[in-house]
């Protein structure tokens, strides 16, 4: 059956173009309906649902350990942090006492995941604006992190290493050594990234003044993560509602006030430096202890509502569980950061050019499975 999409605000001198769902710049299956006038964009309407897998409905008949497995596939670039969110919700609801070793290891792997996600973002960002070599440099560093994960957790991308009650296995003996090697290697590479892309005049011309987002708009649209921090909105969940071992480390929250794409870019680059400093503070002093706290095989949360916020690489992920005391949640809702970040695309892209849309979308760092769930 042919489906015809009619845009009711279509004026005769405007041009209606479809970007996606298969498109090299939309980072996943996102379809954008653009109404353009020459080169200027008049309206951007995202069309979602191409990778909707009804995770929320599926979770209503799954046990909590199975739900952890599903969250890997939401924002697959920060899969460990997604798992951590659900595990923390369950552990806080059951009021389990988690030993320090587990917390520290979760934080270290979470920060490594953040660095891996940001290097991939950097590589793809360069590719979107035309510097095709950055993709390979970003992936070279990400491969090192993936190898560390593979040794410890068993998988490179969807790690599924957290369980409610701790970690599935203890860390591999090589973990500490390899992480330290990686940090030493990466400290020499980040300045290289700056020389290649950040300091480039062409790149700065493409990014500065493009996709402006004011602080009030950022808060109103619910922007979080680097998108919010690039506009001066202090929204780092690691600072305001710390979890795991994050209250024991000192790190800066990176805030920029300009609100353009270049500010968001710089926030992510500097976040990588901060993540490395967090890992360095923790890696030498991993406390001894168990890697798991025993829970029942069938976890039943007490009756009530529970909310847990974590900071993924994209922003604030929220897990909202309504439980009636049975072994499945009555309702589970994942507040994904990409969903709110995508809603501001229309706001920042209108009035700019198509090239600006691509650049702004790259700085929003959208991962579509995170939005579609």
């Amino acid at each position, binding site marked *: 059956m042919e489906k015809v999409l009619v845009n009711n605000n279509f004026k005769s001198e405007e041009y209606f173009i479809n970007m996606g769902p298969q498109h090299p710049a939309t980072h996943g299956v996102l379809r954008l309906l653009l109404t353009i006038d020459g080169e200027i964009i008049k309206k951007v309407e995202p069309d979602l649902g191409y990778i909707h897998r009804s995770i929320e409905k599926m979770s209503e008949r799954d046990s909590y350990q199975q739900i952890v497995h599903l969250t890997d596939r939401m924002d697959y670039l920060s899969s460990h942090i997604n798992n951590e969110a659900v595990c923390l919700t369950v552990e806080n609801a059951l009021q389990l006492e988690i030993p320090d070793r587990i917390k520290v290891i979760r934080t270290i792997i979470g920060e490594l995941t953040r660095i891996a996600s940001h290097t991939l973002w950097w590589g793809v960002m360069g590719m979107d604006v035309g*510097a095709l070599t950055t993709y390979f440099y970003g992936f070279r560093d990400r491969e090192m992190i993936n190898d560390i994960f593979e040794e410890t957790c068993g998988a490179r991308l969807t790690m599924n290493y957290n369980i409610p009650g701790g970690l599935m296995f203890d860390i591999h003996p090589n973990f500490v050594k390899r992480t330290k090697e990686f940090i030493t290697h990466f400290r020499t590479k980040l300045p290289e990234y700056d020389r290649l892309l950040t300091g480039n005049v062409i790149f700065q011309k493409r990014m500065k003044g493009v996709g402006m987002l004011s602080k009030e708009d950022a808060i109103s649209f619910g922007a979080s993560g680097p998108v919010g921090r690039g506009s001066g909105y202090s929204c780092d969940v690691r600072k305001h509602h710390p979890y795991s071992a994050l209250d024991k480390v000192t790190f800066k929250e990176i805030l920029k006030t300009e609100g353009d794409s270049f500010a968001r870019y710089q926030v992510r680059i500097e976040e990588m430096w901060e993540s490395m400093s967090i890992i360095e503070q923790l890696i030498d002093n991993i406390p001894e202890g168990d890697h798991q706290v025993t829970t029942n095989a069938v976890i039943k949360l007490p009756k009530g509502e529970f909310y847990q916020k974590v900071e993924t690489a994209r922003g604030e992920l929220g897990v909202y569980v309504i439980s009636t005391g049975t072994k499945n949640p009555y309702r589970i809702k994942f507040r994904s950061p990409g969903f709110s970040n995508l809603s501001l695309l229309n706001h920042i892209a209108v009035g700019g050019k198509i090239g600006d849309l691509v650049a702004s979308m790259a700085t929003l760092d959208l991962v579509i499975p995170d939005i579609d769930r």
Partner: protein
Amino acid sequence: MNTMNIALNITQTIQDLLVGMMPESVASIVTMVVIALIYLIIFAVAGLYLVLLERKVAAWFQLRIGPNRVGYWGLLQTMADALKLVSKELTGTVKADKFLYNLAPYFVIVTSLMALAVFPFTQEFQAFDINIGIFFLIAISSIGVIGILLGGWSSNNKFALIGAMRSGVQTISYELSIGLSLLTMVLITGSLQLSEIVEVQKSGWLIVQGHIPAVIAFMIYMIAGTAETNRAPFDLVEAESELGAGFHTEYSGMKFAYFFLAEFINMFIIAAIATTIFFGGWLSPFGITDSIPWLGIFWFLGKTLVLVFLMMWFRWTFPRLRIDQLLTLEWKYLLPINLVNIVIMAIIVWLNLTIKF
């Protein structure tokens, strides 16, 4: 020595050979056909190996190796690709204007071939030594734009049309800069004929003779030349992450190969013009091997390939410019600098301040 000298002036040699066998007019026509075939072969081989060079250079920049399975060091890779392209189905859109759609690739190929014919690869190895050499080259590159516009228009595809329009605007704007920077150098040589220009450089390469304005002219020429051939950082037209593949979205198989090859040959032509005008053509530095004329081919190719490598280096390092930034660069920056440069060069030539050896 004698035989080698005669062999280089190919047009004359072949003509003389044939005059003995058939009447004059037929001999000249057959000569023309033979020369055209030779250049077509040079064009095809050069195109193929330039594509391979690009892939290898890109790979080395990106920490990879590049094609190395097909033939030793990947030398037969493009041959395999060409065979694949030849065997592909020639698709076309339903409402495409058939005649223009088929005609468009030929425009770009023919103009590239014509430009290739006037270069002095070495002393007397030149198919067509016209006395308005540079003017001829610039005029030919203007004809190439028609091919791009026709390709985009006749595909009956919104994206292709947008891509073709952008490309047309870009090419027409940057031709101005190319013309003016070449004009700057002509002020020193006093002649448009390419072999004369190389002769003048026997007393020092033009980039050295003209010192400051020549260096500025060279830099403007390289920027404008990269933009002229739609290479990065000016490749908005073919930007994959923006809107499909630009004006050649609807082409496949051999016709796509024509556009693709023509882009590489254009790159070679821009580099070759720069070599001839700025870097002494086939002359060796300080005249060390000038007594062996056929070595001139290697000097010419070597210098051209260095400039081609420079253009490839640009492509894999810099991000892309937006269309309005591209046009601002040309009209607000390069053009005024160029005009001022011409005046400076004129003053230097008038006051005899050029460096001669």
